């Protein structure tokens, strides 16, 4: 069996972390993509076709797949023209039945059998679906219109009250070459894949398999935290012999401390927690609620970190950072604080592409793009996105999203009067 893996999307809703393909984000020292590859290997699928972008960082990481025990081919989508287009490009390598999935489906192996069993029930193709009770979620998804066991149509992002069912499509499919032939005849547009399924359902046996297994999506930047928590479930206690852990530091629960990491005096680390290679945790720092510090990252003395992922080579000094994602190569000065809960305790809304998205999360801090510098004694309000290579002046409260390459600061006026 083969798998086609989609990794060429623009991921614009994933901003500010879409400077790389989103599956290239590292969690616990490994790219998300590597987790997905492990999952595919565990499923016995070794022939992979990747749809990638022109710059092809994925190809640089994986090569022909031989070092991972896989056979990998690539097709390049010069621009993000949708799943259907990616599949048509991959057609030349397709043999017969194949899976189609996104590069962040780290738990593919859990869904493989459900799809294969359904395929055996005289199905041509099978779609994986999940019962969704939240209408807010359904209106952002493809929703199945069904008749008995069969799919009749996939309705993209139905308006509230018009949903044909409560079955949302999860992006894992078991398809065949006949479907691809049918796809070729569909009019070219971004959603030709979804439309083609509806068209194919009129003449073929399109079935659905329902799963209640947790499936973590990776659409928005804060979804990194959910995926981190999901992967943390497999975290085990490990302290590398090359790590330097002060005898006065407290290490509680499942804490992984990688090679060369240093944990200084009186730091407290509560698991689950991952401390990457050569990372540094300063004196009296406290890490709790699921912290992931990637390679070469630094947390200064007296810092409190809660449920936060900090990517490679970033440094923060002191203060409090909670429920946040910090990109690569950031610098955050002393006395920085995130507000991660609204005063009215309602869920945090985030502005994404000009639209306010309700995250459904009560606790959410900030998301900071690669290479951003933040001055001392600054703060951020819940759910704010700070773009890449931005500069935030000292004593500034970030109350709205900050664009890439922007300087954002609060202007002070010095007032000196004679008494």
């Amino acid at each position, binding site marked *: 069996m083969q798998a086609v893996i989609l990794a060429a999307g623009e991921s614009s809703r994933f901003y500010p972390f879409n400077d790389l393909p989103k599956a290239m984000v590292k969690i616990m020292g490994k790219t998300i993509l590597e987790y997905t590859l492990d999952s595919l290997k565990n499923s016995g699928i070794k022939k992979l076709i990747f749809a990638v972008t022109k710059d092809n960082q994925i190809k640089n990481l994986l090569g022909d797949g031989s070092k991972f025990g896989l056979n990998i081919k690539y097709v390049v989508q010069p621009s993000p023209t949708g799943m259907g287009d990616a599949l048509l490009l991959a057609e030349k390598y397709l043999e017969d039945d194949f899976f189609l999935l996104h590069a962040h489906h780290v738990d593919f192996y859990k869904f493989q059998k459900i799809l294969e069993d359904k395929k055996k029930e005289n199905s041509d193709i099978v779609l994986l679906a999940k019962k969704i009770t939240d209408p807010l979620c359904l209106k952002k998804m493809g929703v199945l219109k069904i008749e008995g066991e069969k799919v009749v149509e996939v309705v993209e992002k139905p308006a509230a009250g018009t949903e044909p069912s409560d079955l949302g499509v999860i992006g894992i499919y078991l398809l065949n070459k006949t479907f691809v032939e049918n796809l070729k005849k569909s009019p070219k547009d971004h959603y030709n894949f979804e439309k083609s399924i509806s068209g194919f359902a009129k003449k073929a046996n399109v079935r659905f398999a329902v799963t209640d297994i947790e499936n973590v999506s990776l659409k928005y930047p804060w979804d990194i935290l959910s995926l981190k928590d999901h992967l943390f479930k*497999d975290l*085990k206690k*490990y*302290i*590398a*012999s*090359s790590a330097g852990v002060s*005898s006065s530091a407290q290490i509680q629960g499942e804490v992984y401390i*990688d*090679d*060369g990491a240093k944990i200084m005096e009186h730091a407290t680390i509560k698991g689950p927690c991952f401390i990457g*290679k050569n990372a540094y945790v300063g004196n009296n720092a406290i890490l709790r609620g699921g912290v992931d510090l990637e390679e070469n990252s630094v947390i200064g003395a007296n810092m409190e970190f809660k449920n936060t992922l900090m990517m490679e080579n970033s440094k923060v000094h002191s203060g409090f950072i909670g429920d946040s994602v910090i990109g690569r190569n950031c610098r955050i000065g002393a006395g920085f604080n995130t507000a991660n809960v609204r005063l009215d305790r309602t869920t945090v809304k985030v502005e994404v592409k000009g639209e306010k998205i309700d995250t459904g999360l009560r606790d959410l801090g900030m998301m900071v793009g690669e290479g951003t510098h933040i001055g001392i004694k600054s703060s951020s309000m819940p759910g704010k996105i700070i773009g890449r290579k931005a500069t935030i002046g000292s004593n500034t409260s970030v109350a709205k999203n900050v664009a890439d390459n922007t300087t954002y600061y609060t202007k002070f006026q010095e007032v000196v009067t004679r008494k």
Partner: protein
Amino acid sequence: MKKFVLFDIDFTLFDVQTFKDSNLKEYSVYKEVMQVLDETSKIAMLGIFSKGETEFQKTKLEKTGMAKFFKNEHMHIFVDKEANLTKIMDKYKDYKIFFIDDRLDLLYSAKKHLPEVFTIWVKRGWFAENQEPIVGFKADAEVENLSEVVRIVQLN
């Protein structure tokens, strides 16, 4: 003079990278290790001198099948290996000691304390990759893996 070979565990005998890559499930040694231990045990006494939590390190020895080469009284595992180095060197000072480790700084400390110690630096893993040169010190032997250890112990 009787010979005594002190082995470190991580990166010297135990394949840490494979262990980490397998999400801490696969306990394995480098491919030459079992044969080297078998042959060395015929010409010298063997011991362990390692950093870490005792139970965890002993689990590595047991799960890989290495434990049979080491008597319990010659297994020395400490959270703070540096602090116990001189004590261990002194314990075996009546033997010709071969001290095998991936940490050059420990070999240097051992040599300073007991110049007769024969130091063997195993250049693999995190420590070897990140090791700055130590001015005025070179290990008596440097090896990429343990294959040469039998010959070194025989000839010295």
